[in-house]
Every structure is written in C-alpha cells, then in structure tokens.
C-alpha cells in the first residue's frame, strides 16, 4: 500500500541504503565446505574422527564471519561470529551428556539381570554378585532422610509464610537456609560423623548417620520449594476461612496445605532425587559393606553411590587366564544405570505431578 516506488536493488546497494547480505544458503555452503576441507585434512594428516569434527567446527566458525566481513561489513560479521559461538557452545555441552548417557546404557544393560538385582556382594571375589544390599541401603537411608527433613522443612516453610512475617527469626532462617544450600556434601557427612563419633566413639559407622547427613542437604530444598508454594496460595482463601471462624492452625491444615499440596509434593520428590545420588557423605559416615544390612541403627550400610565408588576403586581382577576389564567396572556401570534410572523416574514423577496440580494455582512464570 506504500506510495513510494520501490528502489532498484542495485541502486539501493550502491547508494548505501541497503547493506549487501550473504545469500540465505550462505551458512549451509560454508558448513559443507568446512566439512569437506576438514575431511580432506583428516585423510591427509591422519587425524582421528573427533579431531576432524573439531577442525570442521573451527573452519566454520572462522570461515563464515570472514566471508560475512568481506560482503556485509564488520558489524554483521561480529554478529555472525557470536551466533556461531553460541550454537557451538550449546553443541559442545550436549556432547558429554549424550556420551555419558550412551556409555551408561551400553555398559549397564549387559550387566542387568535378576541375579544382579537380587544378590549382594557377600563372598564374591571375581565376577557375579549384585546390588541388592546397596539398593536396600539406598532406599532405607533416603527414606529415613525424607522422614527427618520433610516435617522440619515443611514446618519451617509454614513458619516463614504464615507466622514469621518478616520478623528477625524469619529473616535469619531464610538466610541460614541459603547458607545450607551451599554446604558441600562431604562437610554434611563430616558433620554427621562428628556428631555420632561424639556419642558412640570414633569407630562408629551407621546407616542412620547417612540419613542425618542427607537430611542436612535435603532440608533447604524442601524449605525453598514449600515456601514458594505456600506463598502462591491466595490470601482470599485464608481470609474466607478466618471469616468462618476457623482457627489459624485448622486453616493452615485444611485450606492452605491442601491447596499447595501438589507443589509441595513435587518439591519433596525433587529434593529426594537430589540427595539419592549423594556419595561423599554416605561414604564417610555410613561406610561400605558387602552384605545386606537392614538395620539403620547398627553397623555399616552399603548404598548405591558408594557401591559404584567401591566397585570402581577396587574392581578386583578378571578370573585366572582371562583378560579384559576388571569385573568391578561392569558392576559399577550396572549400578550407575540403576541409579540414573531411579533419579530420572523421580524427576519425571515430579514433572508429572507438577503438570497435574499446576492449574489449581497461578504459576508465576
């Protein structure tokens, strides 16, 4: 609908009104050329496949901005260079993730069997054995940690949202929860160790100590998510309940908590998935053992992450006359697969819960 006559492209370019642009297929062309050149170099110099890809990426990242600089000018070239770098950094981060997951799947699936899941390592020297004791240990220790941290975390969140009202205790608690988020996991383990050493003497190693250490890591996550969810509950609901003469504590139990239920459970599940893979604190305070121990309060207790570590650090030797990797490595990969599967299932469950309960409250973003 414009009344001006379109300017001839050539005129526009020569008059400096329109910048010349690279053709639309320019980047594809550079990519093909970079790949071809890198392939040639790989064959001539005998580089490895990975090195070839690195060379190709470098050629592309250098080549496209150079061409752009000749045609489009330096500003557009800088823009293209930045775009290349951003895409390259993303690709570079995805590579290790894919590599790791693929390795765990490849090496882990071969090990998985009914025996692997239902046998302990008691009396196993070479191949064989399983993760039953570690699986049970992980479940028990994490369950106890959850039982400790959920009440404390939930009630702290209730205090912060419903009772604290920005008072000194509330502000201090918020700050301390922030600090707790940053505690290195091994320090949490040492804390539990120091605590139980003071009570029971220096040689103590019990599963419950692991639960204490894990709950120290879990509480801040629970507090944070529960607090956020409780704040999302509209105050209209609370006021309506007060107007009916319901006491505050019943309002919290019957109105506030049910409204925020989905979000709180999601937060708890995510917190569990965060601590279930912790190794260092359990290594320090729960110790390692080869046999099944179902008693949290006595004796060393094996857990999956510690199992992976011990199988890795003392993998044993292959049976006499055979060669190949030590048998412990295979078991470590198998246990890693089981552990990652547990973590991913927990994460997925949290996501599904979040989706299911989301419409009840307005989400911030």
């Amino acid at each position: 609908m414009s009344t001006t006559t379109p300017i001839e492209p050539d005129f526009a370019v020569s008059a400096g009104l329109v910048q010349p642009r690279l053709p639309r297929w320019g980047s594809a062309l550079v990519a093909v050329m970079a790949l071809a050149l890198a392939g040639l170099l790989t064959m001539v110099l005998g580089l490895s496949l990975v090195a070839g890809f690195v060379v190709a990426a470098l050629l592309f990242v250098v080549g496209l901005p150079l061409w752009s600089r000749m045609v489009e000018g330096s500003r557009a070239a800088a823009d293209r260079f930045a775009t290349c770098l951003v895409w390259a950094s993303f690709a570079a981060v995805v590579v290790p993730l894919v590599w790791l997951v693929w390795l765990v799947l490849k090496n882990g699936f071969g090990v998985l069997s009914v025996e692997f899941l239902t046998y302990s390592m008691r009396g196993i020297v070479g191949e064989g054995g399983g993760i039953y004791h570690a699986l049970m240990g992980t479940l028990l220790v994490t369950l106890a940690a959850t039982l400790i941290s959920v009440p404390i975390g939930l009630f702290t969140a209730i205090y912060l949202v419903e009772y604290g009202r920005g008072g000194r205790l509330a502000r201090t608690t918020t700050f301390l929860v922030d600090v707790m988020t940053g505690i290195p996991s091994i320090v949490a383990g040492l804390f539990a160790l120091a605590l139980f050493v003071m009570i029971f003497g220096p040689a103590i190693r019990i599963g419950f100590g692991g639960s204490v250490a894990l709950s120290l890591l879990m509480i801040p996550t629970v507090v944070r998510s529960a607090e956020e969810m409780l704040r999302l509950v509209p105050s209209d609901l609370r006021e309506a309940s007060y107007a009916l003469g319901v006491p505050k504590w019943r309002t919290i139990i019957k109105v506030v908590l049910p409204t925020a239920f989905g979000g709180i459970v999601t937060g708890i599940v995510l917190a569990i998935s965060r601590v279930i893979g912790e190794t260092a604190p359990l290594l320090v305070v729960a110790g390692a053992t080869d046999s099944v121990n179902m008693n949290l309060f006595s004796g060393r207790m094996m857990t999956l992450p510690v199992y992976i570590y011990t199988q890795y650090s003392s993998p044993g030797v292959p049976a006499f006359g055979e060669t190949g990797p030590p048998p412990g490595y295979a078991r470590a990969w198998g246990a890693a697969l089981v552990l990652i599967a547990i973590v991913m299932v927990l994460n997925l469950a949290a996501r599904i819960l979040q989706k299911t309960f989301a419409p009840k409250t307005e989400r911030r973003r």
Partner: protein
Amino acid sequence: MTFSAPTEATRKPVVRLGDRLFAGTARTAALIIMLALAGVFVFLTIEGLPGLTAPESIYKPADDFWSYVGPLVFGTILAAIVALVIAVPFSIGVALFISHYAPPRLAAPIAYVIDLLAAIPSVVYGLWGGLALAHSMTPAINWLYDNLSFIPFFAGPPSVTGRTMLTAGIVLAIMVIPITTAISREVFAQVPRLHEEAAMALGATRWETIRLAVFPYARSGVVSGVMLGLGRALGETMAVAMVLSATPVVTLNLISNTNPATIASNIASNYKEATPDRQALLIATGLVLFAVTFAVNFVARLIVSRHEKKVSR
C-alpha cells in the same frame, strides 16, 4: 445464652491450645535449622581441633597441620579455577542460546535437558571421567604438550593414563555448567523487553543488542551464578577423587601424573584407613573447606540481593 459486652480482658484475641501448639511447632522447626547449622560448626570444631595439634607422624608426609592442608587448599582452588575457566564461557553461551537464539518452541525442552545434567549423580560423572574421558583425553594432552609446553600449565611430562588435573577440571566444569546456566538464563530472561527493543530500533544487530542491553543488566546475576558454581566446584568430592591419583604437591602443571588432591577428595580417599587421630585431621580439613565455601556463598548471596534491589527499584 447471653452475650456480654467485650471488656478489656476479653478484647485480646482468644489463642486456642491448638494454635499455640502449631505455632510452637513451626517456630521450633525454624530453630532446629539454626541449631543444625550451628551444630555443623560446633561439632566439626570439637572433633577437628585435635587434628590441628596431633603428633607429627599423623601429618605424613608433611610435618604440621598447615603444611598438610596447604597443598590441599591449593589443589582445591586450582581444580575449581580450571573448572570455572572452562565452564563460564560455555554456560553463558548455553544460557544465551536458550534465552535468545534457540527456536522458541525448543527453548523450554532444551532448558529441561540442561537441568537434567544437574540431576545426574556426581559418582556417575566420576565413573565416566575415570573410565571414559580420561582415556580419550590422552591425545589432547599429548597435543598440548607437543605444542604448548612452554606454558607452565602444560609443562608435562604428559600423563599416559589421562588422569590429570585438566581431566578433573573438565568433569567439574560439566557439573558446574547446569548451575551457572540456570541462573544466567533466568537473569537473561528478566532483561526488560523495552531495553532490547530500543537497541534493535537503533539498528543494532542481535549481538550488539545482547552486548548493549542484556549483559549490563544481567552482569551481577551472572556473577552470582558463577560464584554458586564455584561453591559447587570447591566442594565436589567424587568426581575429583575418582579421576585423580593424588600426591601432595604444589604444581601448576595440569597434564602430568602428579596432581595435588582437593580437600574433599582427600577426605574421601583417606577416610577408610583413618585412625582416630587421622579422622580428627580429616574433619579439621573439612572445617577449612566449610569456611571457604561459606565465604564464597556468602559473597554470592550478597551480590544476588544487591541485584534484586536494583531490579525492584
């Protein structure tokens, strides 16, 4: 039933027993958190203090606490710095990719996948680093030695196994990236739309928009994300313990066989044969680590809260 007019005594709201109990429980929970954190300090100090002044033989091969913990602190900081040098550019790149470059429909799933990186247990990263990455690093390490050995970091001789500080740093970097990315992505997304549109209206390219409108606004947020990542890199145990075979040395050399341990990995690899004296020593080093990470996190929180004030203004 009769109603009496409210007198001075009854005007105060009735506090029921249930209310008092519930409020008390909630306050107790908050206090427990305070006690727990104080307990971390107190118990570590009580159990760790004997480690400061133990007989000389405990500190083998060093001869007192500070010369024992010195190389460990150095190793911790070196590993964390290597990790950050690798992780920070990549995190900013990935965060920009998610917030500004990726096709909008892909951005959310990609962000989720990057968050999943953080969910993988550290021991699995260590397993991967020790059994897969270390071996694959040997050509790169040899190349660095052949071409760049004049830089002290790559002075060599190159490790044959690939279990070097550089490898540990890369594993740590991959564990730090999700944290730093998550926070950077959040602040990049918070940049006011109008700032960006103003820059674009003046004819800025996408990169210039990011440089002029996004980075100045997001700087403090990114810095705090980096500090949180630093906190994680300092405290990470298993990845380093599983990749490095440590000797108590102070060296900048990233690609040789002799590498300093970090505080955390030293605890993990020595707890097993710990006598009570030795155990006290390890707890004391843990206290040092706690102090360092506490300081780092404290600074990070300070920067974040200053940023929040700036945003809300």
